[in-house]
């Protein structure tokens, strides 16, 4: 195929996006527009989507540059609730730290931190009812922590040990906790999107009052499931809240490969005629406010909302990833929207309801709590060290009742274990 120029037309060009900074570059985010607090005031929850297109291009903010909470989006939380929010974010951070380290110590195969994005799971979970169903991606462990899911259960899962409620079957961090309104996490991106819509449709069709909330990353928005989900939700006015945690990166690909060079992720909502909000994801109060708005909207039969949290993935994609290979080292430090924990802390201090000392003490206390729990969990075993669920459990739950062929295979497997380990092979 030769190049063909015709009618004196200039040749076509393929545009391939490129992030602004690569390793060695100095990160400079001065081009990111941070509008003033309340640039776009909070509309009524029953507003028509067509009337709030600008909210999909703005940035809902509550915490001002001086850390004061301002404007119509301010959810007006009391100090106890603010401290609870801070505590949960700190606990999440401590948990992430320890578990990341556990992976590095060879105690498990895999871990994923949510550093820098803590507000998008903690503040959101605080707005929902306990029995609303969350359909998270793999980076919303903050929901479980906020909902007081026993941390030891999370650790058992991460270690795939004999205490793991998921029987060691799932990759670490792929929790499932129905009682805590936390849907089984999938390794397959964005599949939870239509599922959340289905759950919400079921709830609506039964005249229930529970709503669904679903999370995915910026990169994941490209999957077809995203579109199927938004289409279904628009058609049936499903009581569901779509959330896109735009942390700027997929694995090594920046959000430009999901379309962010042209528009915001919140603007996707406009295409379906549903409400869309773009929110400062590192402002826990803005996150809370947006989610509360969307939840009220869903619960009063005003339909679905898509919220984009504009945030930044402070660390690697997972323990398998090394971000220094593809992005500038200091991006997080330069991030114009700061750190969600630091911002909330500053706010509380500004209110006179918190202090650096209290903060330091709490951090230590929470880290101790995590360490203690970790020790407990490790009594149940760590990955690859024998204390796993019995081998037979591998064949359970494929179906409700085990069919003959799995029974046969199970018997075969047990004989193999016997060949391998002799009479004392049976662990547990």
């Amino acid at each position, binding site marked *: 195929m030769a190049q063909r120029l015709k009618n004196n037309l200039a040749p076509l060009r393929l545009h391939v996006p490129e992030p602004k900074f690569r390793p060695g570059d100095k990160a400079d985010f001065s081009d990111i527009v941070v509008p003033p607090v309340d640039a776009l005031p909070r509309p009524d929850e029953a507003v028509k989507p067509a009337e709030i297109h600008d909210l999909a291009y703005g940035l809902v903010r509550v915490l001002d540059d001086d850390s004061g909470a301002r404007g119509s989006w301010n959810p007006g939380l009391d100090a106890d609730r603010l401290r609870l929010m801070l505590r949960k974010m700190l606990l999440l951070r401590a948990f992430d730290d320890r578990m990341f380290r556990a992976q590095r110590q060879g105690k498990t195969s895999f871990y994923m931190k949510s550093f820098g994005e803590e507000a998008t799971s903690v503040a959101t979970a605080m707005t929902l009812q306990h029995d609303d169903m969350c359909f998270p991606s793999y980076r919303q462990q903050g929901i479980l922590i906020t909902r007081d899911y026993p941390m030891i259960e999370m650790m058992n899962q991460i270690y795939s040990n004999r205490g793991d409620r998921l029987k060691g079957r799932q990759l670490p961090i792929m929790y499932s906790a129905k009682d805590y309104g936390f849907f089984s996490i999938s*390794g397959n991106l964005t599949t939870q999107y239509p599922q959340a819509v289905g759950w919400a449709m079921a709830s609506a069709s039964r005249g229930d009052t529970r709503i669904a909330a679903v999370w995915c990353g910026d990169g994941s928005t490209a999957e077809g499931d995203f579109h*199927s989900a938004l289409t279904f939700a628009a058609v049936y006015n499903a009581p569901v809240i779509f959330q896109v945690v735009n942390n700027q990166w997929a694995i090594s690909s920046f959000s430009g490969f999901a379309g962010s060079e042209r528009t915001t992720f919140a603007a996707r909502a406009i295409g379906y005629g549903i409400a869309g909000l773009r929110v400062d994801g590192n402002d826990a109060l803005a996150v809370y406010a947006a989610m509360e708005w969307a939840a009220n909207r869903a619960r009063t039969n005003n339909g679905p909302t898509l919220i984009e949290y504009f945030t930044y993935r402070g660390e690697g994609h997972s323990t398998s990833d090394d971000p220094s290979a593809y992005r500038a080292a200091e991006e997080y430090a330069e991030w114009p929207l700061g750190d969600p924990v630091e911002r909330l802390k500053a706010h509380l201090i500004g209110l006179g309801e918190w202090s650096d000392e209290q903060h330091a003490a709490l951090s230590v206390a929470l880290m101790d709590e995590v360490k203690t729990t970790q020790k407990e969990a490790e009594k149940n075993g760590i990955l690859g060290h024998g204390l796993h669920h019995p081998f037979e459990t591998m064949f359970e739950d494929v179906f409700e009742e085990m069919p003959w062929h799995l029974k046969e295979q199970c018997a075969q497997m047990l004989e193999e274990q016997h060949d391998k380990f002799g009479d004392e092979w049976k662990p547990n």
Partner: protein
Amino acid sequence: MIEAINSALDVMLTRDPDVVIMGEDVGYFGGVFRATAGLQRKHGKTRVFDTPITECGIIGVGVGMAAYGLRPVPEIQFADYIYPGLDQLVSEAARMRYRSANDFICPMTVRSPFGGGIFGGQTHSQSPESMFTHVCGIKTVIPANPYDAKGLLIAAIEDNDPVVFFEPKRIYNGPFSGYYDRPVEPWSKHEGSAVPEDYYRIELGKAATVREGEAVTVLTYGTMVHVVKAVVAETGIDAEIIDLRTLLPLDIETIEASVKKTGRCMVVHEATRTSGFGAELAAQVQERCFYHLEAPVERVTGFDTPYPHSLEWAYFPGPVRLARAFDKIMKD
């Protein structure tokens, strides 16, 4: 058979408020094959409704509904169009119970017409069942007559695991002998076509021996049950014909007993040959009955090409292909 399916859905909508039916054109209109005719009017728009045209959405939404506690029965308009929804079936529905250790389950039955013989061309004729049998966590069910269709569909809907329920569209309105040039016989003239109005179920995982015989065991399902029966009747071969009804879990006992009795086994399906379900059947039969076999397990199948529009009857595993296979297996 289409009425039997309609009746099964009606019975289940009536008995169980958790049953919900959805799919392209299944609502007001009642489905392009009329499987859901009248159901929306009777049970209401929130129980039986049309959907956007996205198989990924239909199945994915079904998974979510099932997680909530409903028993969704989505329809995929043609089995050929199930692929856009395959990820939701394979990676989600099939895995839900296992990966969550029973925390969430997926009692969903995906209905879909499959198979050829209606001049539907390559995108309205496929038989993809073997793919589903490779996916652990899904049951695959295929009825061959109205009575079974109703009983199996009810059992599928009541099952607490995801079921793919493939309906052989060639026999929706009457059995099919394989002689495409003979007049269509309606179900009403056919034995075993009487379908009770009420609830009944046929256990999944149980085959039916539709003809007892001593000379050779024929394992088949769907449309091909009737083609095999016609050829057997014509040729007078004393074949034992087993209608598998459920491909997974397979009724291995019935199969094994029969093959050990006859010493010969033929497997018949319309799907393309390579890695079709016939391969699994042949593999299992020779594993379990090796010392009883007097001839290799013979596969009679569609060819490894797309389903061609104008040459559909040269493609279809009809009476000639079957007769030749019988000749061969009885000679061996």
